[in-house]
Structures are given as C-alpha cells and as structure tokens.
C-alpha cells in the first residue's frame, strides 16, 4: 500500500503501524518525534497500535533545539 511520508509517496506492507514506520524510516530518537497522521497528532501511547492504511499522510515533526 502507498503511504505519503513527509510528502513522498512510498510503498509499505499492509497494516504497518506508526511505530514500525518510524523504525523502517530510521527516524532518529523516535521516542521524541511528534507524529501527525492526516493532520491529527498521534498520541505517543498510540504509536505502537495505530495501523496505517492506503493513502495516509504521515509527518514526522522533530525537536530542533539549537539556535544560540
């Protein structure tokens, strides 16, 4: 199935969870990444249980702490 991850359409196996997607995409420090699914926040408690479906739009929102 196709999922749009960070604006790019990619092929993944059926029923993949948000947690598995974070692993497949090699997201750095995944515990501290905010995930939005179809422009809704995915609560951190539901990252492991939220299954994705065809056409879902996922964004990873990273902490960026530098600046001084």
């Amino acid at each position, binding site marked *: 199935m196709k999922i749009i991850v*960070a*604006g790019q359409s990619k092929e993944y196996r059926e029923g993949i969870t948000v947690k598995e997607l974070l692993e497949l995409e090699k997201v*750095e*420090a995944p*515990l*501290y990444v*905010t995930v*939005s699914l179809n*422009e*809704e*926040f995915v609560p*951190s408690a539901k990252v492991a249980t939220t299954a994705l479906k065809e056409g879902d739009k996922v*964004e990873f*929102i*990273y*902490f*960026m*702490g*530098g*600046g*001084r």
Partner: protein
Amino acid sequence: MGLTNEQLERYSRHLILKEIGVSGQKKLLASKVLLIGAGGLGAPAAMYLAAAGIGKIGIVDDDVVDLSNLQRQIIHGTPDVGKPKVTSAKETLHDLNPEVEVEAIQEKATASNILSLIQNYDFIVDGTDNFPAKFLINDACVMAKKPFVHAGIIRFKGQIMTYVPGLGPCYRCVFRNPPPPEAVPTCRQAGVLGTMGGIIGSMEALETIKYLTGTGELLIGSLLTFDGLTMEWRKIKLPPARKDCAVCGEHPTLTTLVDYEEKACALR
C-alpha cells in the same frame, strides 16, 4: 506624524512595497520586539529588525561572546570576545540604525523574570538554544497572550513556526514536554552550519515584520522546515491546537511557570 526626510531615504525600499508603504513603516517604527538569545538565530534576526526600523528592540542574554560563537553569530566581532553579548549586540545595532532604541538585558530568561521581560513588548523572537528555554518562552507567551516566533537549527537543518494567541497550536501542542537531557542531539554535540542561523533567523525577522505590519500569511498552524543539504523547504501543516494542551488547552494544568533543568548545551 510623518516620516522625516532621513527616514524617507533610509526606508525607501520598504516604502515602495505596497504591502508595507508609509503606514507599514510607521507601524514598525512604533513596535517593540524582544529577542531572547543573542546568538545564531538572534544575531541575524536582531540585525534585520534594527535595519527595518523597529522602534525598540530588547535583547535578553546572560552570556559573553566566545570565539566559537563567531562562526555564526555575526552581530559580534572578534574584538567583542569576552564582552557581554547584549552589549556587543547593542553596539552593532546602534551602528546599523541609531534611531532604534535597544534595551540590553544581561540576564537569563527564567520562570521568575520572563513575564515581566515580555510584558512591554509586542512580539517575541525565540533565539534560544535549548528546550527548557523554548518551552518557557512558549508557556509565558501563551499565559501573557503574546505572539512569538519559534525557531531551531541543527547541523544543516532548521525549523520555524509562529504562535499567535487563539489562532493555532502552540509549541507545547506540537512537542508536549522537553525531551530528557541528551535524548536529542544539540548543536554543541552535533554541530551547526553558521549560515543556518542566518537563513532561519532572517525568517524569524520576516515573520516578525509580517505580524507587525499585518502583511501576508504567518506560519500559524504550520511548521516550515529547511534542509540545507538538499535545499528543500517543507511547509508542514500542523494539526489544530490540542484541546488537552497543558498550557493553551481548554483546561490548562500548567498555570505557573517552571524552570526545567537545562542541560541542552551545558557541555562547554
């Protein structure tokens, strides 16, 4: 009151913009902007805001200029090493535009002073380098109903978003709580290309000028990200403000400010 002949000349490139014009320039001249942090982000933001003719610029920073700052903090020069950053910044801004009033505040923004620091300013610019400070700015601005622009930079990447009270998610809606120290890389550990501060700090100045003049679309409810390696900008549409947000939600649980332990850039 009209603009003086000198102002007509100094700001002439603004005045011919239909989005700014004389009325927009007068708004800038009457505005007060507070920058928290006079470093990688705050330096270029302060310089463009002073050049733009912001009436009063406040700069909060308790640090002194270090040689390792000069790779990105272009408001400071080599002879300024060892000088308080706010003093060095004030001197540069005065040279750039002497009609801007600069308030140099050599303090660290903390839970106990931030509300009084922001109270007399119209817009706040986050130029800090650690999560506790970024959450503190957010929480204080939400509580005091002040608009602010958040930004962060690391390596070749940057991000920026704007909060205007009542109009979109706050920083805490997006990021909930500061990550534990060392959980996510900091500039000091991971490095940052100096120009990232220029790019993203200038964007903060742009958001500030747009807010103050009522021009264009702000990054409210959007996070703009930039990857300097691929030269890709992405404007990520954020979910709406969380109803259960601890600070801006319907029933806030965070009603007094707290100082989180700051370790983000504590390694010298």
